[in-house]
C-alpha cells in the first residue's frame, strides 16, 4: 500500500517511455501529465467528491454508526429549522462573532501593515514580532487566553484595574464571552498584516511620487491609490476569513467544550462547529450532523458568492484596466 501511494507515477512513466515510440510526443506528454496529477485526482475523488455526495445522502438519514442507517427524508432538516433551539443559538453566536471579528481583523491587519510598510530601519524585527502569535498552536493559545481572562486572578482584569476599571467576568459571563474571544482573535492579526504588507510592497512607488507632486494629501493618497490597489488582497482576506471564522472550532472546543456544559455560560459560546461536533461525535447522530454540516456549507457558499458578486464594484484589478 505505502509503496504504491508513495510513488504512483515512477514505474508507469518509465514503462511508457520504453514502449511508446509509436505515439506522438504530445500524446506522450499528455499521458505523463495525467499520471503526474493522478495522486491529486484520486484524492479529489476519495476525499472531496465522494464525501460531499455521501454527506448529502447521509443528511436524509438517521444513523448512529452502530446500526444500519435509516431513511429519514427531510426529517433532520425540518427538525433543525423548526424545533432546534440550539441550532438557532449556534447561528446567532457564530454570526455575531464573525460580524465582530472579520471587520475588526481586516481593519487592524490593514492598519498594522501600513505601519510596517514605512521605510524605516528595524521593520523586519517588528514584522517578525507581530507575525509570531498567528503561527502558535491554537490549543496553547486558547489555554493562555482562558487564563489571562480569568476574572479573579487574570492579567487582563489586572491591567483594567490599573486604569481604575473593574473588569467583567469574561468567559464566565454570557455577555462578555464573544467580546473576549474577539480580543483574543486580534492577537493573531499579524498573520493578515503580512499579507497586506506584501500587497502594499507590490504597489508601484512612482504612483505615490506622481500623486505627491500633484499635491495629493497623504489621506487622498491612501484612499485613491493604496486602497484601490490593495482591494484584491482585501478581497482575498475577506473571503478566507469568512470561510475560516464561520468554521471556528479549536478555540471554542478548548475553552468551552467541556462534557457537562458544551458552549460556555448559557451556551453563549455555542459555536456552530462545536454544536456540530457534539451532535456527530458525542451523540453519534451522523445524519443530523450531516444535515447541520450541509446547512453551514450552503450558508458559507451563499455568503462567498455574495462577496464575489459585490467584488466587481469595489475590487480593482490593474490588469483589466
Amino acid at each position, binding site marked *: 500500500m505505502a509503496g504504491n501511494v508513495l510513488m504512483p507515477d515512477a514505474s508507469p512513466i518509465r514503462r511508457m517511455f520504453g514502449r511508446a515510440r509509436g505515439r506522438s510526443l504530445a500524446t506522450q506528454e499528455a499521458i*505523463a501529465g495525467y499520471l503526474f496529477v493522478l*495522486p491529486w485526482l484520486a484524492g479529489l475523488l476519495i476525499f472531496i467528491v465522494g464525501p460531499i455526495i455521501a454527506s448529502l445522502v447521509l443528511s436524509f438519514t438517521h444513523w448512529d454508526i452502530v446500526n444500519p442507517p435509516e431513511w429519514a427524508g427531510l426529517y433532520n432538516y425540518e427538525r433543525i429549522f423548526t424545533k432546534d433551539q440550539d441550532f438557532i443559538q449556534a447561528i446567532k453566536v457564530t454570526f455575531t462573532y464573525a460580524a465582530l471579528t472579520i471587520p475588526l481583523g481586516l481593519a487592524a491587519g490593514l492598519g498594522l501593515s501600513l505601519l510596517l510598510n514605512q521605510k524605516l530601519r528595524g521593520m523586519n524585527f517588528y514584522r517578525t514580532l507581530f507575525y509570531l502569535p498567528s503561527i502558535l*498552536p491554537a490549543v496553547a*493559545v486558547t489555554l493562555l487566553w482562558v487564563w489571562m481572562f480569568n476574572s479573579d486572578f487574570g*492579567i487582563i482584569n489586572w491591567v483594567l484595574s490599573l486604569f481604575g476599571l473593574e473588569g467583567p467576568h469574561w468567559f464566565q459571563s454570557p455577555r462578555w464571552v464573544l467580546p473576549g474571544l474577539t480580543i483574543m482573535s486580534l492577537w493573531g492579526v499579524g498573520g493578515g498584516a503580512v499579507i497586506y504588507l506584501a500587497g502594499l510592497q507590490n504597489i508601484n512607488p512612482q504612483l505615490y511620487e506622481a500623486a505627491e507632486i500633484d499635491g495629493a494629501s497623504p489621506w487622498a493618497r491612501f484612499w485613491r491609490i493604496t486602497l484601490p490597489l490593495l482591494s484584491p488582497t482585501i478581497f482575498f482576506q475577506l473571503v478566507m476569513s469568512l470561510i475560516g471564522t464561520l468554521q471556528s472550532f479549536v478555540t471554542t472546543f478548548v475553552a468551552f467544550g467541556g462534557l457537562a456544559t458544551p458552549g460556555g455560560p448559557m451556551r453563549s459560546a455555542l459555536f456552530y462547529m462545536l454544536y456540530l461536533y457534539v451532535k*456527530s461525535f458525542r451523540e453519534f447522530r451522523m445524519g443530523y450532523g450531516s444535515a447541520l454540516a450541509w446547512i453551514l456549507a450552503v450558508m458559507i457558499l451563499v455568503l462567498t458568492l455574495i462577496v464575489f458578486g459585490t467584488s466587481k464594484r469595489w475590487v480593482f484589478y490593474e490588469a483589466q484596466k
Partner: protein
Amino acid sequence: MEATNVAAHAPSAQPDTEISQPSLLARQSVRRLLSGSAVYVILTVLGIVCLIPLAWMLSTSLKATGEVFIWPPKWIPDELLWNNFTRVFTTIPFARYIWNTLTIVAWSIIGNVLSCSIVAFGFARLRFPGRNFWFGVLIATLMIPGTVLTIPTFILFKELGWYDTYLPLIVPTFFGAPFFIFLMRQYMLTIPLELDDAARIDGANWWQILTQVILPLCKPPLTIIVVFTFMGSWNDLMGPLIYLSDPDKYTVAIGLAMFKSATMAARTDWPALMAGSLMSILPAMVIYYFAQKYLIGGIASVGLKG
C-alpha cells in the same frame, strides 16, 4: 531609487521652482523624521502588548500552584519553579505525546513533499488537455468548507478499520494538499522551460527531470511545505480528537486540551498547564525563527495571487 525618480520628475514638471526645492526637501525630511518616530512609538507599544501574553505564560509556568491565585498578580515569582516543567511529564505522558506527534508530523511531511511535488510538476511543466480546467478545480477546492467532509471521511476511515490509528491523519497527505500544490506550481512556473528541453535531449524522462532538474531548484516552496506541514500536524486538534480514542496515542494538542479538562474539576493547575503550553509552542517558535524569510514570503504570495 526614490531620489532618482524625484530628480527625473522635478525639472520637467516645474523647472522654475528649482530654487525652492532644497527647503521643500528639508521640510519634508523633518516631517518624515517626526512621523518616523511616531511610527516607532506606536509599533513599540503594540509590540509590548503583543508580547505580554507570552511573558504572562512564562511567568505563570514558573510559579508555585498557590502563587497564581494572588491579587494583584505577581510578574516575577518568589522562587523560579522549573519543576513545573518536569511535572507536566509526570502528571501526563507528555513525552509520549511528543513522540506520537512527531511520528505523525514526519509521515505527513514525507507525504506532502512527495505528492505535492509530483502533482505540481504535472500542472507546471507538462501540457495535457484539460490542464487549466483541473487546475481551476484545484483552486476551487481551497474554498470548500471542510465541515461537509468531516463525517463521511470519518466513516470511510472507520470502515477501513483505521479508527484509533494514525493512518487517517497521515494517508491523506499522500494525495496532495491543494494549497501546497498551488504554491509549488507557481514557483515551478518561474523556472525556464529550456531546462526541461535540454534534459529531454540528453535522454532524461519526466521523472528524472522532476527529481534531478526541478526539485533541486525548488528549495523555497519545499521549505514552506515542510514547515507548514509540521505546524499543521503539530497544531491539529480536530483530527486526533475524532480519530484517536486510546489516550496513549494522543498528540500534544489533544493531550493538552484533555489535561485542561482533567484539571478543571479541582482548582486548575495553571503553572503546569502553562508549562505544557509553553513547551508546545517552542517548536513553532524555533522553526519560525529559522524559516521566517520563506514563511512570510510564501504566505504573502498566495494573498497576492488570490
